[in-house]
């Protein structure tokens, strides 16, 4: 396993996440895709920490995980509110701010 293959993995996960964010309509699926993108960043951090040495990148990953959890909590709360309001979690319905 080389650094290059790890970066490629991270890129693939990022691409899947972006694809999901752009194409999915359901809020939960979008949240999941966002999580994938965040995780691809974490993979990059971890890989560089492993191959180039130095503990600071691993510390970043731990912080990023904690932040992601908080983000998911807020995201899921928004999804709950969206469901209560519209009876559905399609983000196409949540465009009130436009008006």
């Amino acid at each position, binding site marked *: 396993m080389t650094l290059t293959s790890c970066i490629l993995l991270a890129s693939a996960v990022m691409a899947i996440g972006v694809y999901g964010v*752009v194409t999915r309509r359901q809020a939960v699926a979008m949240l999941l895709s966002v999580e994938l993108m965040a995780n691809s960043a974490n993979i990059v951090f971890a890989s560089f920490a492993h191959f180039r040495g130095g503990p600071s990148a691993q510390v970043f990953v731990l912080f990023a995980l904690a932040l992601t959890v908080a983000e998911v909590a807020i995201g899921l709360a928004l999804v709950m509110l969206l469901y209560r309001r519209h009876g559905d979690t399609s983000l*196409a319905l949540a465009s009130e701010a436009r008006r």
Partner: protein
Amino acid sequence: MSPVTLALVATLAPAVAAVLLLVVSPLRHRGAPAAWLTLAATVTSLGAAIALLVARLGGAPDARATTSWIEQAGRPLAEVGVLIDGVSLVMLLIVCLVALCVQLFSVAYMHDEPPKAFGRYFALHALFLFSMNVVVVSPNLLQLFFGWELVGLSSYLLIGFYFARPSAAQAAVKAFWMTKLADMGFLFGLLVLFVSTGSFEWTSAPSAAVATWVTGLLFVAVVGKSAQFPLHVWLPDAMEGPTPVSALLHAATMVAAGVFLVVRADPLFALAPGTREVMLWVGSVTAVFAAGLALVQRDLKKVLAFSTCSQLGYMVAALGAGQAFAGFFHLGTHAFFKALLFLAAGSVIHAVHSNAIDDMGGLRKKLPLTTGAFVIGALSLAGVPGFAGFFSKDLVLSSLEGKASWVPWAMLLFAAFLTAFYMGRVVIKVFWGEPGARAEHAHEGNLAMTGPLVVLAVPSLASGVLGGWLATQTSAEYHLHLGLTPVLATVMSLAGLGAAVVVFGRGGKAPLTAVLERLDTFSLVDRAWAGGYRLGLLGVSALAGWVDRYLIDGLMNFAGWAALEGGTSARRLQTGLVRDYALMVVVGVLALVLIGVLR
């Protein structure tokens, strides 16, 4: 007190009265207190002027005190202050004396006005006296310009005193417009002078070309203020104002401000022979033209108004001949006898309640004192030997000898004949002949009315003998001489009076009356100005309006429209869908990455 303090007192006393009357409205609204206050201020001014005269007779030199105004780059842009020399002292005395007589006369003449109007009248008189004194004591052209505009404002307000009468309001606006049009010449003249010499002094000596420009522009203002052809049209209309106002502003002092300006700026005019030649001709033409029109007026005051135009023409012609002293001397004597004539006319109008000459007639027995005063004024104006007008008119005519192949000289001699002729007509028609319909119950006014007539009659008779003294005060040359001109002038004035007796004594009409009347009613100059106004000013205004409405407003409207449309278009980017925003973020990041890679 020092001469400077006295000059300041003379100038500012009426200003104090004017401001008090303006601010403390109960004083003004009650009428009588306003009259007392204004009279007190005028007496103070006159007293200060007399004190200055006494000091000067005791050998006091010229006094000049200025304070810098608007410091700029370490030196004052201009100065304001007072200058007391022979010219300003004599003018100050004339203005204050005539103003006092006129104000005293007004107390009786305006007696029937409601208190508010009465108070306003005297407040305006105080304002006028202040303005005129500012002109008189000015040490430079800039301060003179301020006073000049202020007298213009006073004139407008006093002509329009009966503003409820449409003709008076129109006359006031007309006078304002005509004189303002001319005053632009003053303003531009000042600018040219300042740009080329860096000062507003009349002693600054610019090059001949600049002097011609400056004096030419100043002369435009003189033509307007002193009612010279072709800007004279406002003066006859200004007779809509109360008669004492006509006496003070539109005969004795304000209209003479133009002549005063030229006397003051004589060093500048001396550098511009071209301007002087124009002045010579304008003055001569005005003198004859206005005298001709004075012959056919049916309104007593309008005869005197045209006569004023004509006499101012004499003064301007003398100034054009380079004889500032002759013009100034005639200004002085004219101030007295024309004020006297106007006040006597006011007395007549007060007695018969009409301006029309045809309503008068045979007033000699009813109004003996007024008749005496008017006759003295008329003889002085006609230039009968011995009277004040004779000396100054003779000096004006002498100063024209040989100028421009004697043509202006001949014109003014003819105008002297006309002057005697039309004054003879008025005297005969008003005071002799059959009593008019309204002349039955005429009677003399009270002392406030007759007193000023007596006071003014004295200098109208005798101020001519002061010529020699006046000349020494203004360091000019003056000597009585017996030559062709005084003899001819005497012959002309006596012939005019004789002709008037022959023609009008039997109720006849002047030759060419029909032609002159047509000329008067058709009033070509008025029509020309009205046409110029419609074509010129309204045309330019229409063009400016079009530019404003379609170009400038169009630009503004386009800016607004572009912002609105741009906003509406940009709004479409904001779909409100998270997906689209996410896509934009992705595209943005990809673009950044691409830029990073390609560099």
